[in-house]
């Protein structure tokens, strides 16, 4: 608003000066003519009013153009001060360019400074994307995001070619005029797409790496040559900054990729180690367990013929039950290690959580940690890879256990939001919480506050949850401890897989469960730490 008012005042001032100078000139000529006529011809030229009016109109119309021009020049002189101010802004901007190493931040800084300090109407920045080989607008001032977000040019677009060949700022009409009409139209269209009347190339080491696109404010259709010249000078500095930022971006990108690969490698190495251990243990342990359990079962099945006393029968049942429990542990260990095989199935969340907790039950009871589970029904079955989701949950649960150390409470809550079709899983611990400065880094790979930890657990969890288009976040609880919250969008498409049809017989735990149900009424081994 302030700018508008100032401009109006300037317009008014300009018109006043114009009128006044025209009046003064008219009066001057009037006096001159009258003096000459009277002095040399002895004739009072302007005796009648009519001739005064005629002469004034004549002089006014003759002088209007040149006087207008001079007043404009005067204003340029007045505006000279503002040019100086512009110049200072550009110098300051140039200086701050070297401090920004992110390409987008750099572009934002430039367009906003142009927009706010230099009073241009539209400023945008076009930058070459090396990977895709195109030029794309990455930031703009004075435009809706929808107007510039998808503006792209191929390297052989006319405007890009012109910039590359001429290596000078292009002004729309000047550049279009000498071209054949199809090309001129195309060029005008390119300018239109950039919402610019003037395009200043960003050239670094002979390569066109982008452009600054500007439209002046107000009635003027173009910038003064002086403005364009200083913009161009600025663009040379900016080009170097963009080049550096590009290098820095690439470097950051490759570091990120490297970290990801490294973590994935470590992760899979860890996995295959667990898998080998699990199968190794299984073979060594399951055979003796089979013999113990089998012989006990043979005796139990003979109870119809031989009457045992209660104690013997009880002992035999316990043997069968406990051997199964021992076998379950290695079985679960193997299941965990299988997460990288992406077989998707319908998963019962409650079972998943219970299984996982039971795997850590020994550790938990040793550390005197109480686990409270709350499952809000109904919880629909989820389509996913059981190993992956189990691992995601295990990592969060382990994290809670380690955060507490000894003595504390872990609360695990699950509920389903019918309206958003999102499942929410909260794992809250009564540990010390997370230091404020660590909060943004907690999901970074290799970030850990514990000695000897890989720093991969939470990162892997996040990767898994993101794989399901879900989110995982952490917050410190008001009282004490931290809360991890997983949100998973509901998925349950049926699977057109032959494997699913055989799923029942393929599930290694199913037959055993079915057979042992009668000797094992006192609950499965997973439930004994419900509240420990």
């Amino acid at each position, binding site marked *: 608003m302030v700018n508008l008012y100032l401009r109006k005042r300037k317009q008014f001032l300009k018109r006043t000066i114009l009128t006044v100078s025209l009046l003064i000139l008219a009066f001057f000529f009037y006096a001159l003519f009258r003096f000459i006529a009277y002095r040399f011809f002895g004739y009072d030229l302007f005796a009648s009013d009519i001739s005064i009016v005629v002469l004034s109109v004549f002089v006014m119309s003759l002088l209007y153009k040149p006087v207008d021009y001079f007043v404009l020049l005067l204003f340029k002189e007045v505006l000279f001060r503002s040019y100086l101010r512009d110049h200072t802004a550009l110098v300051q901007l140039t200086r701050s360019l070297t401090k920004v190493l992110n390409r987008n931040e750099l572009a934002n800084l430039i367009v906003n400074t142009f927009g706010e300090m230099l009073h241009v109407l539209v400023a945008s920045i076009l930058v070459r994307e090396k990977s895709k080989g195109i030029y794309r607008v990455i930031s703009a001032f004075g435009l809706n995001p929808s107007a510039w977000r998808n503006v792209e040019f191929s390297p052989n677009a006319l405007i890009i070619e012109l910039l590359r060949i001429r290596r000078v700022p292009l002004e729309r009409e000047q550049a279009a005029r000498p071209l054949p009409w199809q090309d001129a139209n195309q060029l005008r269209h390119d300018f239109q797409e950039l919402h610019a009347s003037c395009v200043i190339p960003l050239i670094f080491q002979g390569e066109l790496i982008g452009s600054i696109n500007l439209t002046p404010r107000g009635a003027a259709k173009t910038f003064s040559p002086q403005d364009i010249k200083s913009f161009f000078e600025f663009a040379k500095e900016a080009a170097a900054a963009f080049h550096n930022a590009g290098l820095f971006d690439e470097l950051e990108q490759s570091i990120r990729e490297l970290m990801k690969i490294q973590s994935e490698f470590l992760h899979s190495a860890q996995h295959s180690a667990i898998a080998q251990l699990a199968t190794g243990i299984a073979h060594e342990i399951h055979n003796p367990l089979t013999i113990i359990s089998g012989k006990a079962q043979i005796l139990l099945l003979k109870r119809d013929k031989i009457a045992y006393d209660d104690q013997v029968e009880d002992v035999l049942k316990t043997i069968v039950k406990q051997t199964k429990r021992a076998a379950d542990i*290695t079985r679960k260990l193997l299941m965990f290690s299988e997460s990288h095989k992406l077989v998707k199935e319908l998963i019962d969340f409650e079972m998943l959580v219970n299984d996982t907790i039971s795997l850590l039950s020994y550790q938990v009871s040793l550390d005197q940690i109480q686990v409270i589970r709350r499952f809000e029904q109904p919880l629909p079955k989820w389509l996913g890879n059981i190993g992956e989701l189990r691992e995601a949950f295990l990592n969060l649960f382990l994290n809670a256990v380690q955060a507490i150390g000894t003595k504390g409470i872990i609360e695990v809550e699950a509920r389903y939001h019918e309206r958003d079709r999102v499942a929410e899983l909260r794992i809250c611990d009564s540990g010390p919480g997370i230091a404020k400065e660590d909060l943004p880094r907690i999901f970074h790979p290799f970030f850990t506050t514990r000695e000897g930890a890989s720093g991969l657990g939470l990162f892997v969890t996040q990767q898994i949850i993101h794989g399901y288009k879900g989110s995982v976040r952490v917050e410190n609880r008001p009282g004490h401890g931290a809360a991890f919250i997983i949100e998973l969008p509901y998925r349950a498409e049926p699977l057109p897989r032959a494997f699913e049809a055989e799923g029942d017989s393929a599930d290694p735990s199913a037959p055993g469960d079915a*057979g042992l149900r009668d000797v094992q009424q006192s609950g499965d081994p997973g439930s004994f730490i419900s509240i420990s």
Partner: protein
Amino acid sequence: MKLLIVDDEVEICDFLKSFFEERNYEVKAASSGQAALAAVEHFKPQVILLDIKMPVMDGIQVLGEVKKKYPRIKVIMVTALETRDKIEECLRLGADNYITKPLSLEYLENDVREKIEALSGSNAS
């Protein structure tokens, strides 16, 4: 009712053999893959209980051979613990069931009986 038990652990073979013999099965036991294939040739079992992990020739190889020659013989895989890959491979090769150790003898006997009944049922028709 002819049953072949294949396991490299002799104790397991023994107690399974006595368990099934008590229930009037005709039982032979083999403690290696090669012995199992030989037994299949002369004993002609209706059902085989087959362990996967055995030295030299493992259960999956035996399964492949048996199903190729005698597709009518029912094979129940009995193993300590395997990855999903192995389970899927067994099912693809034509295994009729998959049971993990430690075994539930009741379940196992029911399964074996079902398989034999299914066989004699299809013979009669």
